[in-house]
């Protein structure tokens, strides 16, 4: 047996260097302790941060010293070419008022250089209600665009060739219905389904967890998602059938580590459901994508994104037996954190968004939405949206940041934090398993309670001045009259929608609608894939609520566990 020293003199030299470093760090620590310093610092997720990281912090971990981007486990990125090959997609989420108004905003955004569309629906649409349903009163077109049938979807994309854009739709409870409206609109434009590119958010688990726009109970809702996996893999192969979202979990109060772990656990649940249906994991996993919230703690966010890629790749390979590299890579969209924007001194939000955007890009995002400065006050104005988009363009074309792939790889702090994020997530996976998994954890409200506890703690920290928010509990100024203009949504969209729906109901073939809805109920009661049945309902202009109601006849509605 030879010792490494005898084997290789360079290794011995390296060990001596590490010993020397250890002594240097000890000496530094003594000098640091004598200085006047803040004794403790924490990340946004309340993990303690050391004032200095060295090679010693990575002992026992290789970090990413032996990794290149585009190779398992993809910590350093999913593409070998990084942003040299393709910049991230600048995808600004937009929608308000009627389909016609939003169509005009999309044309504006496309002209200004946005490279992908992202549809924000109003709350009635998100919940599966038509614009003229009594529950929709006061809400139509307020926080997004109102889409009640194929006719509205056709109007939304009028003059925009669906074979050439990629469209992301933030829709969950009734996602399967809106997706069918989109597919039917493409058919009417003469675009083959196989040519369509885009994403439906369709992540119902995080709806129960955090965002709360649901329709049906958990089990039938999961079945609908797997139906979409199955149909999408065959007929719409370039479409991302779910965007597994941490965004709303974080916005609702979760820490970075909770966002990471809860979201990945949701993702694993979808994979397990797909496999249980008898699908080959490599047939549907390549179409799963993710969506992360980019919060204020710069390094923690970058580490979260790096850890997320690594955990997903490892679990997909080792637990679920995926072999295609397309199944192992985590593609994701990012959005800067809405919850960090302040109503006080709203111009400061431009700065927050810029730092968050930088973190998203250093973390290797595939697409990015930057928030507008006025979003704690109202939906953004065109001017505010333009500044937000320009923020990305400055980052992309002026800063030099996209030139190098994973430029922070090898930073002692980033590598240590990435490792810590990963081990914290693994610890939370065990806790979730202890709850019986994601679905039982939702039914008992375990996730919801964890998120609410974190939110309450953050509020307490702000009120105790342990967490400083510029303009809110530090550096406050006398309240000035608002210095930025706000977007106003009038009630006209609601009136127009109601009139259009009543015309639609009179002009369509109602016998064909009734028959299509009956066939859908029958399919929902059985085990057949319901997508073709909903698509037929869409084609004959059944409305959103009619389709939701038909499914609800079979599935029932979701009731939330109420607590605080």
């Amino acid at each position, binding site marked *: 047996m030879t010792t490494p020293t005898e084997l290789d003199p360079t290794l011995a030299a390296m060990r001596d260097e590490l010993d020397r470093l250890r002594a240097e760090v000890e000496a530094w620590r003594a000098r640091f302790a004598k200085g006047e310093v803040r004794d403790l610092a924490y990340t946004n997720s309340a993990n303690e941060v050391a004032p200095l990281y060295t090679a010693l912090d990575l002992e026992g971990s290789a970090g990413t010293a032996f990794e290149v981007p585009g190779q398992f486990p993809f910590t350093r990125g999913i593409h070998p070419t990084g942003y040299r090959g393709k910049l991230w997609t600048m995808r600004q989420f937009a929608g308000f008022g009627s389909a016609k108004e939003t169509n005009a905003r999309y044309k504006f955004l496309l002209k200004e250089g946005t490279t992908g569309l992202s549809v924000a629906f109003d709350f009635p649409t998100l919940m599966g209600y038509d614009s003229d349903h009594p529950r929709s009163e*006061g*809400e139509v077109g307020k*926080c997004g665009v109102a889409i009640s049938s194929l006719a509205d979807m056709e109007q939304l994309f009028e003059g925009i060739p669906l074979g050439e854009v990629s469209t992301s739709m933030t829709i969950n409870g009734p996602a399967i219905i809106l997706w069918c409206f989109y597919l039917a609109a493409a058919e009417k434009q003469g675009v083959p389904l196989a040519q369509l590119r885009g994403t439906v958010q369709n992540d119902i688990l995080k709806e129960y967890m955090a965002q*709360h726009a649901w329709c049906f109970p958990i089990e039938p809702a999961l079945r609908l998602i797997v139906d979409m996996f199955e149909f999408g893999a065959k007929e719409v192969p370039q479409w991302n059938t779910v965007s597994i979202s941490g965004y709303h979990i974080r916005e609702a109060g979760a820490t970075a580590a909770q966002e990471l772990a809860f979201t990945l656990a949701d993702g694993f649940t979808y994979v397990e459901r797909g496999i249980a249906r008898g699908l080959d994991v490599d047939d549907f996993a390549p179409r799963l994508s993710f969506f992360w919230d980019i919060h204020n703690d710069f390094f923690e966010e970058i580490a979260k994104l790096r850890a997320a890629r690594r955990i997903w790749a490892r679990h997909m390979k080792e637990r679920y037996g995926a072999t295609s590299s397309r199944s192992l890579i985590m593609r994701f969209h990012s959005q800067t954190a809405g919850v960090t924007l*302040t109503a006080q001194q709203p111009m400061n939000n431009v700065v927050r968004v810029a730092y968050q955007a930088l973190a998203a890009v250093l973390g290797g995002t595939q697409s990015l939405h930057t928030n507008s400065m006025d979003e704690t*006050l109202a939906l953004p104005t065109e001017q505010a949206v333009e500044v937000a988009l320009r923020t990305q363009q400055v980052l992309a074309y002026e800063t030099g940041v996209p030139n190098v792939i994973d430029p922070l790889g090898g930073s002692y702090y980033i590598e240590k934090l990435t490792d810590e994020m990963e081990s914290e997530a693994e610890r939370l996976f065990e806790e979730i398993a202890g709850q019986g998994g994601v679905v039982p954890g939702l039914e008992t409200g375990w996730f919801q309670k964890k998120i609410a506890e974190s939110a309450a703690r953050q*509020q307490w920290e702000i*009120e105790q001045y342990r967490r400083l928010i510029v303009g809110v509990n530090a550096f406050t100024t006398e309240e000035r009259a608002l210095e930025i203009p706000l977007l106003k949504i009038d009630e006209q969209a609601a009136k127009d929608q109601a009139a259009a729906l009543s015309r639609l109901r009179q002009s369509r073939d109602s016998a064909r609608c009734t028959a299509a809805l009956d066939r859908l109920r029958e399919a929902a009661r059985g085990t057949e894939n319901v997508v073709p049945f909903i698509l037929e309902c869409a084609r004959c202009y059944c409305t959103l609520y009619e389709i939701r109601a038909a499914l609800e006849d079979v599935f029932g509605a979701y009731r939330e566990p*109420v607590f605080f």
Partner: protein
Amino acid sequence: MSRPIRVLVAKPGLDGHDRGAKVVAAALRDAGMEVIYTGLHQTPEMIASAAVQEDVDVVGLSILSGAHMTLFPRVLQLLREQGRDDVLITGGGIIPKEDMDALEQQGIAKLFGPGTPTTALIEYIRAWFAARQAQGA
């Protein structure tokens, strides 16, 4: 020693943003009030009927969907119809200042925007309650 203040924290409208409502509910409870939380997606009718059944002093409405101009006055009207115009209807969310002023004109009490410390709500409710008790005595 006066009795605890009873508060209904309610989420009218269709938006699912319950972070603020839950933080406020917990803070009011920790301040010694008796708090009932309705859960999400409540109609004005559901809220008014819960307020009457639970015999609350205060209704705190939380909304971020933009439907406040439709839904808040309806809660107020329903409570008045049931003879409960003594209930303080306050709340918060994403509500532009001029809408807050318009709602106040109609009889809704003070509304709070993002960044408000929970201590401000607690003080506001306590001061209102003390004034009402003093009037009643």
